[in-house]
């Protein structure tokens, strides 16, 4: 028991050691904003106080979250994950297909390049026009916005599979499914993960855009409302909240990555 305790104490200390830059940044930020004394750049203490008021002054039974927090984050996060997962599935699927068939790549390349140069906010109205309801249109916006890094990295990853691995698979007569599942995807996985990680925080951004342009709730809506009302601490509160969410999502993602890519870390380590 004590052993476990010391162990966890040690890991907490190690985690804190990794976060040293956070307090430093906060202090610098506080000093800078206080000395600038601009209403647009409130000091972090004011922002945090405002965030506490809006989201974190709820009952302990709700983990201190206020009803507003539950309203703001619940549906937003659901949309975020929905969009991200759909983009991941589509991006990996299409990316693998394109990576494996240069002919398909030739046909689709211009469309992909065209698509990813189109600002998603411009497309929101058309998704709305096409998909009517709010949520599917928001999902479509997120998927459309975040799929590109996944797609391009998947294409790159599947194209870069060591030729001898593919030859080995062909020699032993792997079926297409096996080849994909056992060879191409694992080999491309490190690159796909880079894409997924990029897409995750991009999904937060797109969520905000989708909420701003299409919906009536969530953090994006809060952000816009605060902007329109010149409520700068509120607006910054939304930004900080987005940053925190991004950090948490990314940390969770890295845990997943550590598991899935354990072999890769082993194979690529140097002493």
């Amino acid at each position, binding site marked *: 028991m004590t052993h476990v305790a010391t162990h966890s104490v040690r890991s907490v200390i190690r985690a804190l050691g990794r976060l040293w830059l956070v307090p430093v940044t906060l202090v610098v930020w506080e000093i800078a904003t206080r000395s600038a004394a601009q*209403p*647009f750049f409130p000091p972090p203490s004011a922002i945090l106080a405002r965030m506490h008021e809006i989201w974190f002054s709820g009952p302990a039974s709700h983990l201190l979250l206020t009803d507003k927090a539950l309203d703001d984050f619940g549906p937003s996060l659901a949309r975020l994950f929905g969009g991200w997962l759909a983009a991941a599935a589509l991006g990996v699927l299409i990316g693998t297909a394109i990576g494996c068939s240069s002919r398909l790549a030739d046909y689709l390349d211009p469309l992909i390049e065209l698509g990813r140069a189109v600002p998603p906010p411009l497309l929101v*109205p058309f998704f*709305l*026009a096409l998909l*009517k309801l709010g949520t599917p249109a928001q999902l479509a916006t997120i998927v459309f916005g975040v799929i590109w890094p996944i797609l391009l990295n998947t294409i790159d990853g599947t194209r870069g599979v060591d030729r001898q691995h593919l030859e080995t698979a062909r020699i032993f007569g792997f079926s297409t499914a096996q080849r994909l599942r056992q060879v191409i995807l694992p080999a491309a996985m490190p690159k796909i993960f880079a894409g997924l990680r990029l897409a995750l925080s991009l999904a937060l951004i797109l969520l905000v855009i989708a909420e701003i342009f299409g919906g*009536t709730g969530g953090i994006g809506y809060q952000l816009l409302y605060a902007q*329109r*009302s*010149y409520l700068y601490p509120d607006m910054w509160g939304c930004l900080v909240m987005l940053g925190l969410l991004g950090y948490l999502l990314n940390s969770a993602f890295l845990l997943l990555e550590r598991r899935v890519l354990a072999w890769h870390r082993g194979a690529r380590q140097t002493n």
Partner: protein
Amino acid sequence: SNSETTSSSAGGTGLEKTTLVVGTIPVPDSAPLQVAIDRGFFKDEGLEVKPEVVAGGAVGVQKLLGGSIDLTLGAYIGTFLAQDKGAGKFKYVADSYGAAPGAFVIMVKKDSPIKTVADLKGKKIAVNTFQSVMQLTAEVQMKVAGVAATPDQFVEKPFPDMPAALENGQVDAAAMVEPFITVESKAGGRIITDEMTGPTEDLPVAGWFTTEDTANKYPKTMAAFQRALGKAQELVANDRKIVEETLPKYTKIDAATAAVISLGSYPTSLSETRLQRVIDLMKEYGYLKTDLDAKSMILPPPAS
């Protein structure tokens, strides 16, 4: 500021600054500016005016504060809000656009069950910007009809998206301006009410403003701007044809549409009492916390 500041040498007019970057919005509100440019009114005053599109009043405020523009078109409500929240101190230099019948309306789609303003209770209403003149006047009309508006029944939507939002049921009603009123009417949309009737009749909507600092620093330049724009405002106020001709030059509204749309009014002077009406309404509806003084936010026109 990125506009060049020249000393009194320029043209011998004694202006502190001969180039002004002015934020505009490609809507009928800013027609007088374009007219003044086209007819050389600014040039006559020794001024060069460079119009720059801003995406909305809030952006105008930020660009003023950031120093990338010298003046901007902006709705009174937004500016008052910004000053109230301490974003900065602003001064209106000239009036531009005011309410007129048929120019600001609430619409529903063809087969909507909503018939009267009272039916809007609890319904989703699209406004182009939160806390804007469109929202305030909608709230006023609802109150007149005896129903209370709640903040969360308003949805922010750019005007061009409103017809689609009405069509596919994202919103039940939309507070619209031209040319979208015409577009929606053609598709069978119905006008529930004019937003600018009763307490809001003839309400000032938008004007040209700058920061207090700029106004104090370049008094002669501002006066020159006021004189030039005043001439254009005078022309436009009396002849709708001029607006119809000008619109296609700086917006993508074509001549045919320009000929049929309902325009607001182009007031020829900044009136303290008129602006005070806006402030009072905003206070009544909880938009403002502090007492704003209309007088202090007006740069008096030059003694001619």
